């Protein structure tokens, strides 16, 4: 009876729990033709029997539905579709019979094979599990073949599987559903062979539709924000305005007087989490109204009180001293002593919020010694451990139901489990006050924007030396910024000799052949602004600085920026490949069409590798006389190995470009006296449709192992745009966001 089910709109759409929470099941295919359940009835009768479950990744019922279990979160990047494509390909399933659901927390079954824990991140979903999912599908297929051979008493090699139907040469045929029970009794093959890529039907098919494209266009997709359990209360929180402040006193009388408010709880913070007060109510509006009626006095004695201008001033001082050396080739000092041409530049990038459309939230149902989490879950294993530690129970008493996330861009994978622990702390406080019900914590947009865990602000100082021929002979680059990894469980693996590899990624590993190269890092230890990975992590700023600097060198050398890069990538064929592909398709060798009278047009190029995926972009901009400008068109080339879902790759390039452009044009979180100055979309300004360029994407045909596409589209766009602006106007933008720097 441990089922959650959903009756769709025509049957009074409703979420119901009957006797606990074990499975998250989406409305749709499975239940479409199976009648109605009124609220209050048990859900078990609606669930088609599962006759065949050969491994942790696929279930097939007598209703002929193939359910693929995705160990990775679907947050928009297309992972559900990608993993299902791989499995269905080897299973020879019909795409229309395939549905996908998120995996529960189970590290033994669902660990990320590149990380050893269950986690979605680092653009690794396809990279770590492509073979695993294909093998899971091939094993299931083999069991259908042996089941059919047994049932029909024919040799296994006379059996084929086409679009979910098992055929024998004799002409007999049966669906997966018809054979499921017998297939479930076959031995699971220990070794399976995989298809020759030449016979792929789903992998590489450009017209294959996403698995979530219907539910996400008719309002039926269920996010954490939408999930309901019987008796559940909604918690809206009050956070302090400064990081590190705690509650001194709270007067909740007015909050408690709001109709439908049930309880008010205080929750303690930690070095990594907010302290605050939560108002629990029967609906979100009442909870919010109650929250707004709280009178809280905060103790700010330990709070962080610096502003971003002061932080940047400190970084500039730090850059004057030696940093830790992340990479050292040749002798930079000697090469910089007698340059024919010297480029000296300082770059600044701001803090950035992830600002997913679905503000952070998490549903918690406590029991006696148990905790059930319902969440757009990005980091099952660490969250499970953190929740268990907070409650003093064992991790296996913490279950997680993984729903769709309405975006994340990294934020839902918080190494401190900040928002998940906050939700659990609220539910626990309510429980201790006698309110023993499921609690869904929802942050408002303001909490989400001011909630910390930003992409770090950073300062870069660089000196590049050119010789008489314009050849780049030295690159000395010093990065100053907070570490996102220090103080987390990832520190032992990702901080080497004091250097957080994410702080220097994208430059310390650059592929340009520069004989004298020195990359330094300085990391402050007094800045208590919570920071975290943000789509493409260190590449988001190091890619910008590196691709701006190389452009500055090309301009100083009087060389074509494309040819200049190309000449330095002789040992990097895949980077060079995307660079050439983008230049061809952007018709780089031909002059850019001029704009209207008074308009200046320019074209910029950038190429960057991140997460083993190679992306090059050309941006075309038009700058008007008043300094306003528009990015008109972006041409993009990507090499991500085998293209599993070409249309999703295109979508991720389009989206990665838009996300990066949003930050490049407008994105900045700033602090004044420790107080975040942005609260909602009028201050933390997102890209809108009128600012979105046309985008053309070209995928390099490849048989290399597949790599990720969720993040790599983002790093090249900011430098491509500033390089285009420099080409159009001669003005070099070295500080993001670009905002009104051209009209100022």
């Amino acid at each position, binding site marked *: 009876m441990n089922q959650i089910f959903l009756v769709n*709109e025509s049957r*009074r*759409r409703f979420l119901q729990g009957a006797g606990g929470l074990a499975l998250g099941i989406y409305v749709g295919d499975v239940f479409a033709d199976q009648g109605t359940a009124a609220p209050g009835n048990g859900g078990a009768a609606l669930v088609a029997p599962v006759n065949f479950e050969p491994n942790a990744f696929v279930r097939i019922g007598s209703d002929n539905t193939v359910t693929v279990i995705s160990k990775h979160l679907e*947050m*928009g*990047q*297309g992972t559900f579709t990608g993993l299902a494509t791989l499995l269905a390909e080897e299973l020879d399933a019909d795409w229309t019979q395939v549905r996908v659901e998120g995996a529960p927390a189970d590290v033994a079954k669902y660990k990320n094979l590149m990380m050893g824990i269950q986690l979605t991140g680092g653009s690794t979903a396809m990279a770590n599990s492509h073979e695993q999912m294909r093998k899971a599908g091939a094993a299931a297929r083999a069991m259908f073949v042996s089941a059919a051979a047994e049932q029909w008493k024919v040799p296994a090699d006379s059996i084929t599987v086409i679009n979910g139907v098992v055929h024998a040469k004799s002409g007999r045929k049966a669906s997966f559903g018809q054979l499921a029970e017998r297939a479930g009794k076959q031995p699971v093959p220990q070794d399976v062979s995989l298809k020759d890529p030449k016979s792929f039907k789903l992998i590489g098919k450009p017209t294959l*539709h*996403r698995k*979530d*494209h*219907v*539910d*996400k*266009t*008719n*309002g039926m997709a269920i*996010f954490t*924000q*939408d999930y*309901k359990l019987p008796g559940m209360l*909604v918690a809206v929180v009050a956070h302090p305005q400064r990081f590190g402040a705690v509650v001194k006193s709270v007067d909740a009388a007015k909050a408690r007087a709001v*109709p*439908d408010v049930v309880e008010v709880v205080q929750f303690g913070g930690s070095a990594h989490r907010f302290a605050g007060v939560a108002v629990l109510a*029967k*609906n*979100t*509006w*009442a909870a919010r109204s109650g929250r707004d009626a709280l009178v809280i006095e905060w103790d700010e004695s330990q709070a962080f009180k610096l502003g971003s201008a002061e932080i940047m001033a400190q970084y500039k001082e730090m850059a004057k001293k030696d940093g830790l050396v992340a990479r050292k080739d040749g002798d930079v000092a000697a090469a910089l002593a007698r340059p024919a041409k010297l480029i000296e530049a300082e770059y600044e990038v701001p803090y950035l919020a992830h*600002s997913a*459309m*679905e*503000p952070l939230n998490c549903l918690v149902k406590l029991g006696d010694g148990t905790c059930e989490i319902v969440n757009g879950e990005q980091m099952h294993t660490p969250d499970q451990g953190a929740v268990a530690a907070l409650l003093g129970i064992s991790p296996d008493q913490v279950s997680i139901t993984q729903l*769709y*996330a*309405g*975006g994340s*861009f990294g934020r839902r994978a918080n190494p401190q489990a900040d928002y998940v622990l906050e939700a659990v702390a609220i539910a626990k406080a309510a429980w201790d006050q006698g309110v023993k019900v499921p609690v869904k914590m929802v942050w*408002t*947009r303001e909490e989400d924007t001011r909630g910390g865990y930003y992409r770090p602000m950073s300062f870069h100082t660089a000196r590049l030396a050119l010789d008489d021929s314009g050849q780049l002979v030295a690159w000395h680059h010093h990065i100053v910024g907070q570490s996102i990894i220090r103080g987390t469980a990832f520190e032992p693996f990702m901080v080497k000799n004091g250097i957080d590899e994410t702080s220097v990624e994208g430059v310390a590993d650059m592929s340009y052949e520069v004989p004298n190269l020195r990359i330094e890092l300085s990391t402050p230890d007094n800045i208590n602004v919570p920071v975290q990975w943000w789509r493409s992590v260190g590449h988001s700023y190091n890619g910008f600085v590196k691709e701006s600097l190389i452009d500055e060198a090309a301009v100083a050398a009087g060389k074509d920026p494309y040819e200049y890069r190309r000449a330095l990538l002789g040992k990097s064929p895949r980077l060079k490949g995307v660079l050439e592909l983008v230049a061809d398709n952007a018709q780089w060798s031909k002059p850019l069409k001029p704009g209207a009278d008074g308009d200046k047009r320019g074209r910029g190029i950038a190429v960057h590798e991140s997460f083993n995926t190679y992306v090059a972009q050309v941006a075309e901009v038009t700058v008007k006389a008043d300094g306003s400008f528009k990015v008109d068109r972006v041409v993009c080339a990507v090499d991500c190995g085998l293209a599993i879902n070409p*249309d999703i790759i295109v*979508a991720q390039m*389009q*989206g990665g*470009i*838009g*996300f990066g*452009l*949003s930050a490049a044009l407008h994105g900045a979180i700033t602090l004044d006296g420790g107080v975040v100055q942005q609260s*909602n*979309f*009028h201050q933390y300004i*997102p*890209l*809108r*449709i*009128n600012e*979105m360029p*046309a*985008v053309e994407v070209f995928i390099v045909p490849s048989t290399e192992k597949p790599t990720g596409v969720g993040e790599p589209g983002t790093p090249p766009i900011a430098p491509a745009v500033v390089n285009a602006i420099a080409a159009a106007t001669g003005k070099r933008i070295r500080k993001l966001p670009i905002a009104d720097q051209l009209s100022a």
Partner: protein
Amino acid sequence: MIQLTINGKSHSYDGDASMPLLWYLRDVADLTGTKYGCGMALCGACTVHLDGQPIRSCVTPVAAAAGKKITTIEAVGADKVGHAVQTSWQKLDVVQCGYCQSGQIMSATALLKSNRKPSDADIDAAMSGNVCRCATYVRIRAAIHDAAQSLSA
């Protein structure tokens, strides 16, 4: 007592009349397809139709919807234009995370109801109130053109 007509069905509500329609739809009527994104009419995720006009339900009190016809994403497909928009959205696989898309579809449907052949500038004007952090804008634009074409066919 406030009388509401949501997707053709009557509802009576005697709670806080200042509650935004968004929260009535989501928390009381269990129509969770309409989303909360900002609470300040800045992102459009909460867009529904009030007597056919697109409104931001996060800043519209329930009282302001009394006696009017409310249409949400759950029922917009019953309308010819809404159905065409949803079909084009699916044909072009517009969605990524999907959280903003109910609002995008409601805004796009309202646009096409008043303008059967919108230009790119018309689309910019009608859709720039709807934020998509996944930046699916290229496909939103293409899907609106596609729906316009299918409606004129």
